[in-house]
């Protein structure tokens, strides 16, 4: 681990103080030595600067006083005196004391600090400039609550703007990020090619920006170039009430207002009846770029004003995400209380109470659906990030890959979208790195040079299916098999189906990549994907055809907060299973167990399904009832039964995560509170399924 920056600062400050002491003693002998003065100044300067950055404000403020004096010394405004050196040495000791105090020793004598500050100030000439305290770059003003306004900005950079390493396009991009912008580049200053100097910026820009940011925030964009560029800023629509009569400005008016055209010229031209913009250009009164800019402004204004009444009618609100999370929490509590009410009502046989309970149940359900809906966001936001990823990565690897997306409007819970990002990145990276071949290879294989990765999302029942499909070389069956055997994931004789074999790439530490690249191939990626998807209670499926490509399908439940589930009991303990995974429930008698000859298999309509006796799995005490229940679940096309004592019924499960202590418990993914206030554990079906498989394997081979 790296040392903490704070410790680094203190350590460094001690070193600087030691150096400072030496320099000061040297200065006492040679009070005119520029070199030594510079060293003293630099030491003070560094202590002050880093002190403030690492939160040692007291040290920073104090050192500032001494630095100020030495700044004057450095500029030959005052001379070093014996007294000054003495004071500096005392100050050095004081800074050291402050550092010691920060390390947890002793108190600093504050009166001594004040005394020294006073003494240093006495060195300053009377008319010393006001404190040159470090002024920070003004932070962009908070956009909160600010009204939406439309601004007209003209940005005319200095010809030599490139020489300072400034990219005007970056500034325009930054400007565009503030809101909705229309940018018109003005090209009229570009000289004929013979006179054109490639290192000179001839362009200037007109921008119409509709934003909630204020004038300062807009000026801040140009903060580094404000001295050597021409930047004008004017508000053209203050976003207040609509002035009905004058809601659409005419082109001519705008040009006149911008000072590009005189009112008299406009008047004259208007008498001819041609399209105004054309006429003005023909007459050479304005340049085509100026007309374009004015038109852009007109459009921006119109759009802004059109939006406004609509926005009033169906207004949307921005609400902090935490508030929504809190709302979902509360609805969760409400669902819990409601199920308690229903349970109580059911036990009372009171018609009135039952009616009220049912009414509450209906309302709570509606409220729950509505609340969960509020948190839904279109997945498209993540998709656009992937476009960038594909572009950058494929370029780095020398491949030509296009990302196609579909279903960007598909909505998913906010938290799910956030947590889906990393696994999707891994899958896409894998496709880019291992899936899609180099353009030359593709050409030889008779495929288009450009590879395609198709990313789509669609709703399917109570889940969303995300598909990542590439047209690359597909998975190498033999390589995966060899690797799986090598890693002990597969026996020498095993001949799994393609599907099962391919799923092995999601196992921990599995990678068939020949070389480890910076992109993927360390054998961690796909394992991480599996775990992340499991944590979202999703499933992964993979199909691949050699030479044709690979398709990975991820199925994710819509929400994470409240799920429909099946409540079961083992002894006195309750458990829940996500209902979406449950297929059916069957009975398991002692006779069935005996007939299976010690193997955990049960016959379900002529099919053998392995099962996991949960009582044994969780090492729970107590006798098994004569007739047990098997809950048959299906996950990724695989069926596994879980043996419980009783099946109680459907249940609205408000998921509570387990504390840190229990996070790694195998087979449990969370907990929920039941109507009677007791706690039920949520079974982690995918994890249990792996356990069941492992057991069955041991039983078969052993």
């Amino acid at each position, binding site marked *: 681990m790296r040392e903490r920056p704070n410790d*680094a600062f203190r350590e460094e400050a001690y070193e600087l103080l030691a150096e400072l002491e030496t320099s000061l003693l040297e200065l006492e002998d040679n009070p005119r030595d520029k070199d030594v003065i510079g060293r003293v100044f630099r030491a003070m300067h*560094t202590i002050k600067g880093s002190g403030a950055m690492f939160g040692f404000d007291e040290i920073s403020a104090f050192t500032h006083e001494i630095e100020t004096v030495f700044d004057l010394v450095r500029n030959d405004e005052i001379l070093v005196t014996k007294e000054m050196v003495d004071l500096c040495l005392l100050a050095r000791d004081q800074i050291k004391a402050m550092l010691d105090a920060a390390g947890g020793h002793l108190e600093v004598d504050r009166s001594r600090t004040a005394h020294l500050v006073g003494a240093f100030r006495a060195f300053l000439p009377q008319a010393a400039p006001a404190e040159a305290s*470090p*002024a*920070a770059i003004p932070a962009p003003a908070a956009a909160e609550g600010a009204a939406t306004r439309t601004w007209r900005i003209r940005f005319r950079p200095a010809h030599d703007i490139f020489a300072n*390493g400034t990219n005007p*396009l970056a500034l325009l991009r930054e400007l565009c990020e503030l809101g909705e912008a229309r940018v018109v580049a003005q090209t009229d200053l570009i000289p004929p090619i013979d006179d054109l100097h490639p290192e000179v910026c001839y362009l200037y820009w007109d921008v119409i920006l509709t934003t909630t940011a204020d004038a300062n925030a807009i000026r801040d*964009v140009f903060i580094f170039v404000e001295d050597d560029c021409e930047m004008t800023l004017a508000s053209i629509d203050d976003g207040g009430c609509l002035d009905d009569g004058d809601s659409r400005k005419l082109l001519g008016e705008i040009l006149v207002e911008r000072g590009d055209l005189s009112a008299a010229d406009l008047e004259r031209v208007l008498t001819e009846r041609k399209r105004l913009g054309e006429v003005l250009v023909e007459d050479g009164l304005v340049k085509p770029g100026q007309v374009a800019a004015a038109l852009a402004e007109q459009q921006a204004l119109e759009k802004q004003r059109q939006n406004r009444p609509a926005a009033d009618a169906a207004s949307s609100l921005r609400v902090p995400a935490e508030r929504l999370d809190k709302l979902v929490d509360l609805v969760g509590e409400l669902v819990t209380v409601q199920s308690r009410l229903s349970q109580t009502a059911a036990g009372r046989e009171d018609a009135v109470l039952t009616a009220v309970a049912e009414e509450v149940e209906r309302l709570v359900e509606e409220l729950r659906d509505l609340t969960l809906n509020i948190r839904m966001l279109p997945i498209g936001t993540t998709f656009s990030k992937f476009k960038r990823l594909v572009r950058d990565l494929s370029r780095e690897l020398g491949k030509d890959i296009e990302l196609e997306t579909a279903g960007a409007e598909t909505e998913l819970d906010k938290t799910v979208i956030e947590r889906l990002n990393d696994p999707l990145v891994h899958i896409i990276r894998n496709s880019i790195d291992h899936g899609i071949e180099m353009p030359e290879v593709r050409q030889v294989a008779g495929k288009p040079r450009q590879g395609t990765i198709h990313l789509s999302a669609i709703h399917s029942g109570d889940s969303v299916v995300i598909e990542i499909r590439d047209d690359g070389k597909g998975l190498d069956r033999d390589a995966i098999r060899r690797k799986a055997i090598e890693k002990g994931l597969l026996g020498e004789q095993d001949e799994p189906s393609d599907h099962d074999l391919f799923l092995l790439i999601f196992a921990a530490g599995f990678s068939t990549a020949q070389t480890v690249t910076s992109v993927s191939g360390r054998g961690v990626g796909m394992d991480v994907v599996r775990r992340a998807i499991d944590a979202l209670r999703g499933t992964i499926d993979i199909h691949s055809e050699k030479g044709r490509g690979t398709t990975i399908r991820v199925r994710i439940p819509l929400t994470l907060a409240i799920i429909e589930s099946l409540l079961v009991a083992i002894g006195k303990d309750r458990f829940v299973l996500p209902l979406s995974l449950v297929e059916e429930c069957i009975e398991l008698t002692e006779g069935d167990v005996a007939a299976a000859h010690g193997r955990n298999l049960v016959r379900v309509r002529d099919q053998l399904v392995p099962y996991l006796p949960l009582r044994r799995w969780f090492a729970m005490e107590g006798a098994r009832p004569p007739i047990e229940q098997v809950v048959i679940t299906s996950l990724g096309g695989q069926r596994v039964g879980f043996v419980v004592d009783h099946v109680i019924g459907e249940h609205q499960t408000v998921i509570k995560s387990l504390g840190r202590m229990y996070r790694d418990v195998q087979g449990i993914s969370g907990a929920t509170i039941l109507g009677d206030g007791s706690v039920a554990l949520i079974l982690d079906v995918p994890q249990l399924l792996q356990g069941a498989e492992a057991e069955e394997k041991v039983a078969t081979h052993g």
Partner: protein
Amino acid sequence: MSKHILAVDDSRSILQMVSFTLKGAGYQVTEAADGQAAFELAGSGNFNLIITDLNMPRMDGITLTQKLRAHPKYKFTPILMLTTEAGEAFKTKGKAAGATGWLVKPFDPQKLIGVVKKVLP
């Protein structure tokens, strides 16, 4: 893919903070303790951005900037200056030397990333 930044400061703590912050933001960072070392590194490497302190032993930030601007590889590369001197005189001096922008110490990591993003799109 990730942009390569050369961070120059004689203060190890500042250098460490700058480097730590930028690495966290996904940039590749190389550290240099003074202008001279930075100039030598710049000559052999290819950096997308140089962030330099002003007051340093051996070679200061202004000289480093002037020398980099004279170097064909760094004619148009953004150069940021770290400074506690916010005065107008300094800005002019920095700009004259060819600095793209500046960052006034003390700054927090968020501000550093903001300014880096500004000049390094």
